[in-house]
């Protein structure tokens, strides 16, 4: 037992660090892009004050197209693009670009549906008060949708953790890569079990934090 810990602790530590790094960085970029996409979709959708059929359909289609591609295919398909953007297609940096491309449209859809649930009457009340559209986006729509957005991002984070495991295929490291290389390829089942247990703990933890945060923000 002791020897297992001594042997593997640094490796697990490194893997957990890589996983967190990939998730954190790609989540940050995806949320940023996702929120912007969601707001564009909300504002330009038919029936809204800034409705624009062309813009709405363009982004709508773009998101659908990207979301139709399985991540594993996206990962290889994007190799040249990744290399062009970050200068390398392997390692943590190499994984982040496809992770963002994969997660951003997903997050955009989740945030879009959170924003759609905001009471239209409140938005109308603020329009009637003569408040500017961009102020309404920040102070009414995003504010009122906060609990729903937090829950949506919890889901997105968990599926990002899943995606990082596949990113191991481009040498990105992380827990998934560890389980694949040692657990699967080298038949070290102990490593596989520990990885799975670690992942379960991480996912449970994130979901609990997300639920609690959303409950605290929700005032009804």
């Amino acid at each position: 037992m002791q020897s297992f810990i001594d042997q593997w602790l640094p490796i697990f530590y490194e893997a957990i660090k890589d996983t967190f790094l990939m998730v954190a960085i790609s989540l940050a970029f995806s949320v940023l892009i996702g929120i912007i996409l969601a707001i564009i979709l909300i504002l330009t959708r038919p029936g809204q004050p800034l409705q624009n059929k062309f813009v709405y359909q363009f982004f709508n289609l773009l998101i659908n197209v990207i979301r139709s591609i399985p991540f594993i295919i996206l990962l290889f398909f994007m190799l040249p693009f990744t290399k062009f953007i970050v200068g390398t297609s392997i390692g943590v940096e190499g994984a982040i670009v496809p992770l963002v491309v994969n997660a951003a449209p997903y997050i955009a859809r989740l945030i879009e549906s959170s924003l759609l649930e905001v009471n239209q009457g409140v938005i109308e009340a603020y329009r009637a008060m003569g408040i500017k559209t961009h102020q309404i986006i920040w102070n009414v729509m995003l504010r009122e949708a906060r609990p729903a957005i937090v829950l949506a991002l919890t889901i997105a984070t968990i599926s990002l953790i899943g995606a990082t495991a596949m990113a191991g295929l481009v040498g990105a490291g992380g827990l998934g890569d560890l389980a694949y290389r040692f657990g699967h390829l080298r038949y070290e089942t102990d490593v596989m079990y520990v990885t799975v247990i670690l992942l379960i703990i991480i996912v449970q933890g994130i979901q609990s934090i997300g639920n609690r945060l959303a409950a605290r923000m929700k005032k009804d």
Partner: protein
Amino acid sequence: MIKLENVTKVFPSKKGKDVTALDNVTISVNKGEIHGVIGYSGAGKSTLIRCVNLLETPSKGKVWIDGIDLTKLSKEKLRQTRQKVGMIFQHFNLLKTATVYDNIAIPLKLLGVPKSKIAERVVKYLEIVDLVEKKDSYPAQLSGGQKQRVAIARALSQEPQVLLSDEATSALDPETTNSILELLLKINAELGITILLITHEMNVIQKICDYVYVIENGNLIEQGSTIELFTKPQQSTTKKFLNTISQRKLSDRLVDELKLGGRVVRLTFLGENTGQPLLSKVTQQFYVEPNILSANIIELKNGIVGNLVVHLIGNDHQVEQSLSFLQEQGVEIEELGVN
């Protein structure tokens, strides 16, 4: 103060059947008055009030507020003019995630009211709506009436000249409705705010309106001072609305039966007439025996209207004479059971 001039609103429909929600409607609300628009759901009253602050752009016609034609304004100017027009809604439309205090303070902040003045204003208007002690509560912790009070305080805190009320009491129980109506009367009297409201409840009109518009299928079918409307309703829709206040209608069968031995009339008294014993005079002077079938009195904002349905028993000539006597005394007469 508020004027809609020949406003028409057509909602285009894909199937080629355009819906005319408002058809050439003209209304004019004087400064400091309370005007009400009444109609059934789907009559177009919601569209009408939303045309006043251009939440709905009229297809044709002009919208004036305080001498400014809103339909000619740029987006930016329109946004600024809207700040002079407060609005309250059936479903209150408060931020769920903000306290009562913040629900009033956030719009003020966004509208550029100096920070130092915001707290003062929020408290001032919370005092007017009598909710200061709830300032740290969230909307979910309030009753419907309290939520509407917050919404009223939010509208007032922008110190508008005009308040639009979109079915503000329709989601409230009768008692709460009354307290909100009293609040509206108070802010009209004390702050001099002009109010235009829409409703499907005749008691809202009865209690607070100076002037009434009846709207049906997008058309303005009748209008007049509240007293005129309660004493001399012309359209059947108006009469139906009046029936919701007091049971004015007797069954045809009953009227037909009674007509065999005299005439059945509705007498509407107004103001000073309500105090005079006119019916006993009818008995003494014309030997007609009035049998009272129903009676009620309705208190309006600007007067009292009495309503009597009587069965006049006597010979034809005497009944005729007594009716012209009553008419001379300023009593409105409507004969029932005459087609």
